[in-house]
């Protein structure tokens, strides 16, 4: 991609990514928070595309929509005020966390700007998908295997955590008090 095209895609995308990311935590409505996170991380896919990583950009766009939809699902299930209509404030330590965040940004930004990075001539596109495939199946096969096993353990563990009665499958006793909605 030419320099101008890269800049045209990168700057607006980066700006929207940061602004929507910040608004995820400032909005009261949970559906909007989930969809703002989708916007932020999805537009990060566009940023990847502008940085000549075609496969990663498209993959990011694909995966984020599924993940964020699931997140909205869960938020509406488990949060007290999903519509944001009652105006509850769901934060604590706002000033301290903002200070920590600013400190982290300053530290990382200082490292980013002040370090003497190796000056390589930017040749062409990033590794294309065939090279990535050979890398995954060749040199990084061990890491790939471990990543696969991690997913499997996470799936099994997640299901065990979430099922009724936990991993032993013990059902709730008959006389357990239920509230008006009838949830156990």
């Amino acid at each position, binding site marked *: 991609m030419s320099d101008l095209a890269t800049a045209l895609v990168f700057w607006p995308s980066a700006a929207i990514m940061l602004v929507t990311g910040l608004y995820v935590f400032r909005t009261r409505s949970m559906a909007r928070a989930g969809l703002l996170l989708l916007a932020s991380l999805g537009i990060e896919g566009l940023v990847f595309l502008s940085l000549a990583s075609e496969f990663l950009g498209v993959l990011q766009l694909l995966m984020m929509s599924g993940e964020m939809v699931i997140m909205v699902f869960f938020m509406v299930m488990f949060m007290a005020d999903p519509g944001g209509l009652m105006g509850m404030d769901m934060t604590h330590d706002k000033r301290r966390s903002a200070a920590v965040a600013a400190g982290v940004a300053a530290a990382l*930004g200082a490292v980013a700007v002040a370090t003497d990075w190796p000056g390589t001539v930017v040749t062409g596109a990033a590794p294309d998908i065939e090279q990535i495939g050979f890398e995954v199946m060749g040199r990084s096969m061990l890491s790939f295997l471990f990543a696969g096993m991690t997913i499997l353990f996470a799936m099994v563990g997640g299901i065990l955590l979430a099922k009724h009665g936990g991993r032993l499958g013990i059902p709730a006793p008959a006389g357990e008090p239920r509230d008006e909605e009838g949830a156990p």
Partner: protein
Amino acid sequence: MISLPVVLATAALLFAVGVYGALSQTNAIMVIMGIELMLGAAMLNAVGFMRYAWPDAASGAFFVLVVMTLMAVEATVGFALVIAAFRNRRTAELDDLTELRG
């Protein structure tokens, strides 16, 4: 005009937004969202390095793949924990889940 420090600075800002979210929100699901933003910033770093410092290293792309996988895994385990906490204690607010606090 876009060079490595620019990309890294953008990623640093995104990371900071994620830190703000993870520290300031009381609900577990919002904390998960903050962590997702932080992992997104890590991915942006890797892509920046791949583009501007080491263009031939496909292992950078593999790193991004693994981090994307980890985003999904972390969300999975996080949501399972939220379901379990909600089932036992009817709340997913981190301020109420303080039984182990010392």
